[in-house]
């Protein structure tokens, strides 16, 4: 009976890799298409899309390599990995390059490296490790919250609020999935309120963004500008999308069309027919991961297997929701599809570790 279970589980893990590799590659290609269309009226129409394709190849290589390392290695080296990826978060504040008002990149000879993107998987691994090790409920909660604060503060100081939100979501996800108490979760959310209030007072533009989101038609050329541009872009895409290379709205009006507005830009190029499969694809990855996580025996592995795709889906849904205007405008990229090596390679590495965790004799 056990032998049968093992065979069935090995097959499902194999299925997962079969689903994951082509799906992530297709998502990456779809991203290249969106990036080409959103920059095709620039002086060098293939510059961004070409670079993204190169990053996609690098990402696929890292996906393969990180999946080949045993999960035992990640488990043993979790602290070293965490420190290695945490230090750049601090260093970037002092020696980082500022892009779009954020001090979040290291630059070297035209290549940009965003440490907060690469730190996501090690941070999640560390959270899952602490969650599986600390038995006492209250101590576990405090440890997870403390680690989250330590990792989120340097990111918030850049200031990169989108990524900070993802880090905090990772904490909520791990604590919830790991069997945390609802009242502690509630308290942590309540404790977040003064931080949010302070942040809103320090950044009054948030009010105008919120007003613009609530009633964009009231001020379509001012506060509602971004929201209206997203809607116009989606409308231009229609069901089948604008002709190849004719995504004029993404080129001319969308803010950061190839990164923070990648989904709207993609929708203009390939329409509902091409954008809807992206949503379905992300959910298929989540559902498949959930099936595999159910079979994992140890808590660390199970939580990690579930949380990696769930966090990926969460970030993607926040990005898409902003782009279809059901959430107020916030700068967050669509993992794998948005332009940038960091935003593409780091989820690939995360999925590589995810595959490594999924491949185990325990099943």
């Amino acid at each position, binding site marked *: 009976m056990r032998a049968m279970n093992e065979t069935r589980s090995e097959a499902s893990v194999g299925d997962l890799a079969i689903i994951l590799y082509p799906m992530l590659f297709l998502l990456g290609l779809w991203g290249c298409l969106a990036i080409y269309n959103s920059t095709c*009226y620039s002086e060098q129409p293939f510059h961004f899309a070409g670079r993204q394709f190169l990053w996609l190849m690098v990402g696929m290589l890292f996906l393969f390599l990180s999946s080949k390392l045993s999960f035992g290695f990640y488990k043993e080296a979790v602290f070293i990995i965490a420190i290695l990826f945490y230090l750049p978060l601090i260093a970037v504040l002092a020696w980082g390059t500022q892009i779009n008002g954020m001090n979040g990149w290291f630059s070297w000879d035209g290549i940009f490296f965003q440490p907060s993107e690469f730190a996501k998987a090690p941070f999640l691994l560390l959270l899952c490790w602490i969650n599986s090790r600390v038995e006492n409920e209250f101590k576990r909660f405090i440890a997870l919250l403390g680690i989250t604060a330590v990792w989120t503060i340097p990111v918030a100081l850049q200031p990169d609020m989108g990524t900070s939100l993802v880090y905090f979501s990772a904490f909520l*996800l791990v604590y*919830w*999935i790991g*069997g945390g108490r609802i009242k502690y979760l509630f308290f942590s959310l309540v404790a977040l309120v003064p931080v949010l209030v302070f942040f809103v007072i320090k950044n009054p533009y948030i009010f105008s963004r919120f007003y613009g989101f609530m009633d964009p038609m009231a001020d*379509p050329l001012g506060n509602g500008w971004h929201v*209206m541009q997203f*809607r*116009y872009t*989606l*409308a*231009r*895409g*229609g*069901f089948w999308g604008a002709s190849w290379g*004719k995504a*004029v*709205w993404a*080129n*001319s*009006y969308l803010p950061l069309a190839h990164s923070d507005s990648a989904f709207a830009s993609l*929708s203009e190029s390939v*329409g*509902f027919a091409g*954008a*809807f499969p992206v*949503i379905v694809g*992300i*959910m298929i990855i*989540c*559902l498949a991961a*959930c099936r595999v*996580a*159910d079979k994992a025996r140890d*808590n660390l592995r*199970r*939580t990690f297997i*579930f949380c990696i795709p*769930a966090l990926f*889906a*969460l970030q993607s*849904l926040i990005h*898409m*929701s902003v782009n*279809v*205007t*059901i959430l107020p405008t916030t700068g967050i990229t669509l993992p794998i599809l948005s332009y940038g090596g960091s935003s593409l390679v780091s989820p690939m590495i995360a999925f590589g570790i995810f595959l490594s965790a999924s491949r185990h004799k325990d099943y």
Partner: protein
Amino acid sequence: MQSMDFLFKIRSRVVLCFLVLWSVAVSITLFHYTVSARGKYLEMGDKLAWKEGIIPSVRGRILDKNKKILAWTEKYFDLFLTGAGYIEIRRENEMMAELADIIVLEPIKINSKTMLLKKNLSPEEIILIDMIVSKYPEFKIIPRDERRTIDYSRVRSIIGTVKIEDNMMIGVNGLERTHNRLLSGSDGLYVVMLDKQGNWVRGTWKLLRKPKPGKDLILESNVEELRRQMP
């Protein structure tokens, strides 16, 4: 351990349901804007981005009976700085420095917001500054038609003068006024999409109506006879 397994299953299903419901909401909204409400938003977007413009017709020439040209129209291009005084000083200095590296500027203040930077740009200068004008939408190259006449003052007073109103040349006196309708022609009309800086989006220009040039007016006298007509 079994209770932990159960708890994990329940909670992971809750998260999955939440994500699935969220993705359904995203899909429905996406369908709404791309299909259901598409027409409304297309129309609103078009109103915002598409602008109509006039292509002024070329005013006809005035010739004497020997086909010597007495009055004609020439097109010039001037470079302006718009929104002067409202631009951040650092940006304005940067813009002007980039421009001054390429062409010699002869600035003249037109009003509180507009400054004429250079009159009568040559085609070579237009090509050189094209990139800077696209980069800084505060710079505008504005075409201007100018009516020129033969260099005889007596003949000039017979030919008359023109003024420009709403981008159109209108005869004010002399032959220019008497034969205004014949010389004027009719303006053309185009439509183009503008980006958020007000620059034309490449590949979106469409001609709606061709301009019809004005007809030439041929006089029954030659230049010398015209000169003699005047006291």
